[in-house]
């Protein structure tokens, strides 16, 4: 099994007639992803790579029974596009563009919670369940089907982890790009919960990086999980970034530094990997 997307997922591309939307629709199709349609207001009735184009997500879902959407729209149109998808019944919305206004992502998340949907991103490379479906912009060469679930904030680090897991024979059930924007539709903690419930996932690799709060939110989940978590955090030697006023410090306290993230993750029982090559060593020791 896999989480969020698999060979049964019926995927639509919002913004399928644009350059990036059309290019990646083709790549996803070639991988075997079921791209059942796409949207582009005013272009309903056209076809892109044999996928039917609709004006609205609602028409598209009514016609195709899609349950996953991947968004290739300019950032300022993502609020409208994502909320429309959620209201049309899409279960998993993948937001590829970056620089989504914070207020917009808060509104999208509220709408998703209300409807029981999940929004991944923004600024994510997407989700891939190797051998089943590739939803987003990840290069499939790095990924092999297997038994480890991975989740990462950075696209490039995701590929290195996948590459390592593939070449050491572990492979992945599903790999999720959490996204690089400051406020994200889904947190590490929520993804860990999904992996914990997936019978085929034997262990989870999470890759965090300096800044933000999402790594620090995971300890309660890691402590109660049945599966081991291997954690990596980039930015231990990064120059200290700028801070955001007193209110940020009052709310987020010591959160944000790579060392603090590693400290709380290790304390919660996560196995810390300092390089990609540490990951297969840890997995072997754990008997994964």
């Amino acid at each position, binding site marked *: 099994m896999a989480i969020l997307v698999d060979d049964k997922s019926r995927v639509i591309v919002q913004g399928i007639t644009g350059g990036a939307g059309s290019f990646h629709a083709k790549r996803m199709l070639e991988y075997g992803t079921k791209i059942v349609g796409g949207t582009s207001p005013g272009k309903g009735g056209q076809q892109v790579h044999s996928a039917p184009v609709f004006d609205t997500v609602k028409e598209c879902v009514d016609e195709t029974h899609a349950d996953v959407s991947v968004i290739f729209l300019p950032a300022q149109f993502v609020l409208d596009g994502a909320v429309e998808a959620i209201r049309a019944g899409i279960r998993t919305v993948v937001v590829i563009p970056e620089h989504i206004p*914070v207020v917009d992502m808060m509104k999208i998340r509220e709408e998703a919670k209300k409807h029981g949907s999940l929004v991944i991103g923004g600024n994510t490379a997407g989700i891939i369940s190797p051998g089943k479906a590739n939803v987003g912009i990840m290069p499939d060469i790095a990924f092999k089907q297997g038994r480890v679930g991975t989740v990462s904030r950075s696209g490039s680090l995701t590929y*290195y982890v996948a590459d390592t897991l593939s070449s050491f024979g572990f492979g992945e059930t599903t790999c999720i790009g959490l996204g690089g924007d400051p406020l994200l539709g889904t947190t590490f903690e929520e993804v860990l919960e999904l992996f914990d419930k997936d019978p085929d996932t034997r262990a989870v690799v999470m890759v965090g990086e300096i800044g933000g709060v*999402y790594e620090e939110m995971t300890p309660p989940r890691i402590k109660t999980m049945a599966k081991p978590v291997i954690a990596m955090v980039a930015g231990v030697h990064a120059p200290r970034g700028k801070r955001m006023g007193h209110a940020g410090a009052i709310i987020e306290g010591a959160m944000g530094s790579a060392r603090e993230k590693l400290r709380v993750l290790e304390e919660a029982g996560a196995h810390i990997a300092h390089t990609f090559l540490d990951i297969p060593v840890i997995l072997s020791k754990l008997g994964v």
Partner: protein
Amino acid sequence: MRLYEYEGKELFRREAIPVPRGKVACDVESAVQVAEEIGVPVVLKAQVLAGGRGKAGGVKVAAGRSEVPGLAAELFRLKISGFPVEKLLVEECLNIKRELYVGVSIDRVRYAIAVIACAEGGVDIEETARKSPEKIARVNLRVAEEMLPHQALYLAKAMGLKGAELRPAVDMILGVVRVFRAHEAKLAEINPLIITAEGKFVAADSRMSIDEDALFRHPELSQMGIEKRHEEGELTEREKKAREDGIPYLDLDGDIGMFPGGAGFGIMGIDFLVSYGGRPANFMDSGGGPTPERLAKMLALLEDNPNVVGIFGARFGGISRCDDFARGVVMFLKEKGLTKPMAMRMTGNMWQEGVRIFEEARKEHPEIFKNIEIYGIETPIEHVAKRAIELARARKEQGKK
């Protein structure tokens, strides 16, 4: 994106939050003129996009008219966290009785807007929050939820205010929440919020940061001259050049140039080099889907940097393809040439095409590749990082001889 104090105060004034009488001065003469208009004593405040102003000596009180020119000139010579002082805010002096704190920000853990109040305002507010969190009162709002007066009243009471003090405090709290919402701020802070000896409530300082991703729908800010700005203080010449070319770039103090793919590996690569005993010379990010021209410019930044002895390159083709990467590197090698040794790894989307482009160029011009080692998916990136460190060491030894 930070705002200057005077810009934040202008936004406060528009929401009827009382601020001290004052004006901005761009030189000593206009500072004197503003001081005469307001009447001494005045306070002169350096306007910079950085914290720590008070401790850096960026705030001065002129008790009499004769002190204004000297103090203003002194402030204009100051640099605060790398920022030169180009503007002063000249304001009336307040008779301070109490200093409170009110701030609004995003709580990323709760996905809420947090309205925070504390009876003890001033520079030590973070210390207070850490040591005595019970002194911090807060209200969490959902993104579209209106702040109602009773919620502000609870915060005012939590700050220990009573009787006639409550009304102006409630108005100010509601006002700062309106400012935060109206312009899509990430932070709106009044610190300190002052109660004067005369019993007036005044926002003595403003600290605001705007969500720059939402600027496109706030023409009112661009009308005030608030546009995208950099907040890093002083940039090095190379950082300025990189910025002009649209390349996220930071100088570090080591000697190994980083020529990475995405920002994530740009950060992790620094950790790798340091843990293997190397010292990175920079942080850099190519951005998604860089053109060959942009990649050539990235390499030029490292070739032209006299601190760089060797280069660590990494490309995992995702949205940015290996063929484009190889074209950029070859373009640079043909046009400019690399004198420094480089160990790099290339794999991912279109890697076969990338390898072909390198091989073809090498056949044609073997000499331009003499300092370069190119690895593929069979070699772990950790080994390539170590190899870059070895190459840089060997070059340094050579230099000594």
